[in-house]
């Protein structure tokens, strides 16, 4: 018998620190499957900032750089500009990318930096124990919105793909999810496309991945999956928000120019 499914080579064979049912692990795997299939592990440099995935340098077998909270896009810019022939990706959470790192996020996109950003949106700060994130849904209870997030007090969630698709430098922005097998396959395809964009020098690519956080949502893993499907996907519709290659542009008057 032949093995038809196993751990990708570029995913180091160690147990992870992620909580049971946390879908970070799925995104790690499909990212590494893409790296294996493109045969680029030796030419890839990953940047992981503070967040649950800060220790991903123990899981990804390519060269890794640990970055300050919110600053991965800047670190990645420094890497890519001086090593243009290498593949560079960041793997960031929602607090990192859409709160403290918003300026870095907007500018890495508007510069059209030729890197890939894997953005894990689980509507919460996981590592620090479940506080409100910029993507926390209205009404969602967290450590810092104990009565449910009220937009009047704590503002509205940030829709990152929609926001970044407005920027000319963004070549590709797609929101995917890892709640089901078909969605996981689509997410992998999106990640592959992002890396192919980088290879072809198309500019900035971001894949926003709706992901679960069973522990801090206070839900069993399968119930967390259900919450993602019932509450997150409606608020954060999946799909391609920009793809310069396929002519997908945001609904603004002037299109891209």
């Amino acid at each position, binding site marked *: 018998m032949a093995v038809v499914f196993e751990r990708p080579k570029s995913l180091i064979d160690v147990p992870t620190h992620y909580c049971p049912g946390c879908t970070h692990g799925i995104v790690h795997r499909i990212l590494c499957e893409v790296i294996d299939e493109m045969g680029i592990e030796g030419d890839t440099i990953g940047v992981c900032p503070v967040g649950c995935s800060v220790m991903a340098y123990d899981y990804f077998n390519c060269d890794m750089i640990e970055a300050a909270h919110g600053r991965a896009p800047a670190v990645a810019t420094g890497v890519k500009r001086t090593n243009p022939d290498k593949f560079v990706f960041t793997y960031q959470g929602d607090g990192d990318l859409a709160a403290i790192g918003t300026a870095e996020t907007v500018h890495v996109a508007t510069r059209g930096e030729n890197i890939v950003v894997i953005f894990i949106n689980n509507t919460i700060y996981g590592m620090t124990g479940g506080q409100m994130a910029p993507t926390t849904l209205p009404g969602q209870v967290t450590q810092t919105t104990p009565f449910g997030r009220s937009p009047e007090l704590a503002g509205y969630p940030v829709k990152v793909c929609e926001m970044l698709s407005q920027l000319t430098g963004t070549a590709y922005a797609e929101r995917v999810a890892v709640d089901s097998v078909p969605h996981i396959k689509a997410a992998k395809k999106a990640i592959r496309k992002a890396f192919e964009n980088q290879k072809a020098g198309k500019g900035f690519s971001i894949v926003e991945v709706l992901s679960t956080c*069973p522990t801090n949502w206070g839900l069993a893993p399968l119930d967390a999956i259900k919450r993602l499907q019932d509450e997150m996907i409606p608020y954060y519709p999946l799909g391609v928000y920009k793809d310069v290659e396929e002519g997908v542009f945001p609904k603004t008057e002037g299109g891209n120019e």
Partner: protein
Amino acid sequence: MAKMTVITERCKGCGLCTAACPKKIVALQKEKRNKKGYFYAECTDQSACISCAMCATMCPDCAIVIEK
């Protein structure tokens, strides 16, 4: 003959695989725990396995190997 193998020490008993299996032959067994104390998953009927790997696709810990 298809085969589903759980790497028992890597399984965290999260159960995502159990919901994914179209043949409903993946379940968290209740007798044995791994070193971390998790009741790990198992395939309840290897003969019914069609090696679609949907369980493995849903597994966040690469704890399932599928052979065909």
